[in-house]
């Protein structure tokens, strides 16, 4: 299969995602410039971390106007798996492909550390290879990762099992002391209603090899390989897991 990793001018984890997809997971991968208009035959799309256009206005606010985003939207509408990591998650929120918004971390400062993240649902293309309630040790590195949605939207998200990752302690328990940024309901990652678009603040691509301190994140990209294999043969219309 083939991953396409979108490169915005201020992306800084684009190569990390490319490296994890190609060198660690061992699939094809290509970097796609944000001014391009096609996704180069992608089977899965990654919007990487960084600060797409400087983000002086609001994280991800301008990136949604990049030419490539029309292709990403069309790909997502067709049911293609799209993963937004960190800034990529913020871009998906700004583009309306995922519900909710990001605000400044509750403790104001940028936070960079490894945190436990619990997999809430395994019926998305990016968690298909996870065990239910599996706890992953993943790095976070962001200043605006405080997930917010209005109460009614939040209720809908929970009701439709759209919360995919939650911050927990190492034992997998949710609590304020293990919420690094003030996110509502300790939300670290969500999916859309169709479950093919997933966004998360932690960086699985930076935790895909043991020498880097954790290889727990590898399962996220490996999941999509499994999900697509399960879906084949036939045209790619909807992701079934």
């Amino acid at each position, binding site marked *: 299969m083939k991953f396409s990793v979108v490169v915005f001018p201020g992306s800084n984890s684009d190569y990390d995602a490319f490296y994890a997809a190609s060198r660690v997971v061992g699939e094809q991968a290509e970097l796609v410039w944000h001014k391009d208009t096609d996704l180069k035959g992608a089977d899965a799309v990654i919007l990487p*971390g960084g600060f797409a256009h*400087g983000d002086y206005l609001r994280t991800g606010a301008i990136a949604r106007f990049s030419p490539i985003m029309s292709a990403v939207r069309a790909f997502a509408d067709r049911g293609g798996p799209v993963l937004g990591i960190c800034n990529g998650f913020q871009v998906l929120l700004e583009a309306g492909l995922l519900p909710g918004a990001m605000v400044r971390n509750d403790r104001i400062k940028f936070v960079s550390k490894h945190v436990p993240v619990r997999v809430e649902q395994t019926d998305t293309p990016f968690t298909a290879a996870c065990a239910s309630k599996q706890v992953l040790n993943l790095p976070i590195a962001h200043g605006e990762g405080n997930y917010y949605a209005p109460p009614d939207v939040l209720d809908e998200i929970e009701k439709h099992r759209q919360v995919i990752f939650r911050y927990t302690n190492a034992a997998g328990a949710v609590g304020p002391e293990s919420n690094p940024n003030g996110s509502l309901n300790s939300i670290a990652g969500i999916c859309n209603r169709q479950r093919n678009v997933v966004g998360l603040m932690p960086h699985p691509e930076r935790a895909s090899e043991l020498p880097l*301190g954790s290889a727990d994140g590898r399962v996220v990209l490996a999941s999509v390989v499994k999900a697509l294999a399960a879906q084949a043969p036939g045209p790619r219309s909807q992701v079934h897991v």
Partner: protein
Amino acid sequence: MTVIDSTVLERHGIKPDEYELIQKLMGREPNLLELGLFSVMWSEHCSYKSSRVHLKTLPTTGPRVVQGPGENAGAVDIGDGLCAVFKIESHNHPSFIEPYQGAATGVGGIIRDIFTMGARPIALLNALRFGSLDTPLARRIFEGVVAGIGGYGNSIGIPTVGGEIVFDEMYAGNPLVNVLCLGIAKRSDIIKGAAKGAGNPVYYVGAKTGRDGIHGATMASAEFDEKSAEKRPAVQVGDPFMEKLLMEACLEVMKTGAVVGIQDMGAAGFTCSTSEMGSRGGVGMSVDVTKVPQRETGMIPYEIMLSESQERMLLVVERGREHEVEAVFEKWDLHAVKVGEVTEGTRLKIHERGTLVGDVPNRALTDEAPVYRRPMKEPSWQKQVQQLSLADLGTAPSAQEAFDQLIAVPTIASKRWAYRQFDHTVGTNTIAQPGMSAAVVRVKDTKRALAISVDGNGRFCYLDPYHGAMLAVAEASRNVACAGGEPIGATNNLNFGNPERPEIMWQIGEAVRGIGDACKALGAPITGGNVSLYNETEGRAIYPTPVLGVVGILEDSSKTVTRTFKTDGSAVVLLGDNSGELGGSEYLATIHGKVAGKPPAIDLKREAALQALIIKLIRDGCIESAHDCSEGGLAIALAECTFDTGGLGVSADITAVPGDGLGVGDGPMGATFVINATLFGESASRIVVSTASRHLDAVVTAANAAGVPAREIGRVGGDHIRISVNGQTSVDVPVATAENAWATAIETRMQKKG
């Protein structure tokens, strides 16, 4: 036209004899614009006029050195056709005046130096000095500097992987912000900052030029006084997004092969880049300032030439290939503007709308800047501060009380409050997380890794600059060795007071001599660096603070070890001698409020043997952890080995150091001092390692063969830190208690209001 009188000269920081030299080199009186050029280029910051004669004595060559001092950064060969490109640079003065932007633009400046060489930056480290965190001023500066470093490095996506932070009132009015950046380049891709080929176009690319930072280099070459806050407009404002675009675009444009030379516009901006590129290439350059993109209206040539606006680059492009270069910059939405061309001859000619407004031989600005052999004089107080009599200190606390205090001193305590604000995982190369002895980054597509450490001990250098500087080199190099890295190159940042004072100049001379001797002995040639002088406020200088950055190579990245104990039951071995030297120690400063004595003795042959040994042991896979003993001595080092392990404790018994050399006298207080000196003395050339029992013999045998003392002092295990001296329990504390005090000491202080 402005008449150049003594007031004008003084405002430009130009001394009367320097003005005479300017007239001689020019063959006439300069106009105000030309005077401005000399002012910034001859500033201490740009010309190294006080330090140059000393820096020349440093060892700068070695089998791996590809680029020594004199370029934007140094480079050493790391095999497979690759080079490590690195340099350290200070942004001390701006960081006092405006902490966030001062630190942020310091990071931006050193990153540009690295990618200008054709290298992709992969790691940042910093060496920081602040006043006591018990003062609101120091807290404000610390907060701003840390946020600024993070704000810039995190955005651009270069991980900040390590560093060191020291808090001492001597830095209250002059914080130090030294930033090291390391990048990787193919050896064949390294590009230099030299202009060549008459007729080749000169391009300007990046942010527009504003009035910010005019005379920044001159400001950094003067002492602070009560009016320094008024110099705020001389601090630049950083834009990391612009820098990211510039970095990617420049790295891409270099691959076209159409770039002849490139240089960033840092200190002294457009003036420095044009004159240095011309000077290095032995050519002239003709530019028109009206073509320089400007973000303010009504700027005069003087302002355009002297602006230190950030994120700007100057490129010399091969004539006929302009379109290739322009296309790459267009891709990144950057506009590259032709501002002039390379000319025959050696003059920098500045035009305004075609009219010649400045005409200077470019070597007069660079190589022919004055070089001072300033008078040096050992301070009258030097011998006096080296006197130390423990008996005169009165009472000493128990070892337990001293341990409890030391573990929570900000200089010793965990720096996580700072490094958690730094993205250290971006780039997926970071093997050793921040907080270990050295930072370790892997080199992708090879088996290798690089270990990097920055170290300096101002207190030691104050007490004895020659030995203090040697100790700084030894510590940085030892930290690299403790991660398994074999030192291959070094960079230095010399932070001192006003060199016009003979006592300060003596400190500089002695420190450089110490660096040179240690670098030679430890096989770490200096490939570049930075000098920051005039770190004084109202006549009070900082401690002389040379900071050394050492880079080491591991042939097999999987072999690296960290400071943390790994296995219950493993043997704990001390490599090196414990001699109880308390001169200049953290113990003396924190517990007794005294900075005195001679810094620890150092025998460079023994240090080299120790480092070779630890590198071999790590390569052979004989040890599980290695940690250098520095601030707080052996007891603190042992405690640090238990932190970040999830509560794996240690039991150790240390042989008391001989009391007769300490001058402690007899009696019970003498005995307490002996114990404290044993536990908290900061003797050099010591490493604590842990090793599985089955490897213990091999470790001791290898140490004996290398002539390094090695003694098993205890075992990993339990959940306490238990240290006894000659069988008498001296420190006994649960790991969790000590670790909590250590981990939270800085954030507790930062939560204070004010």
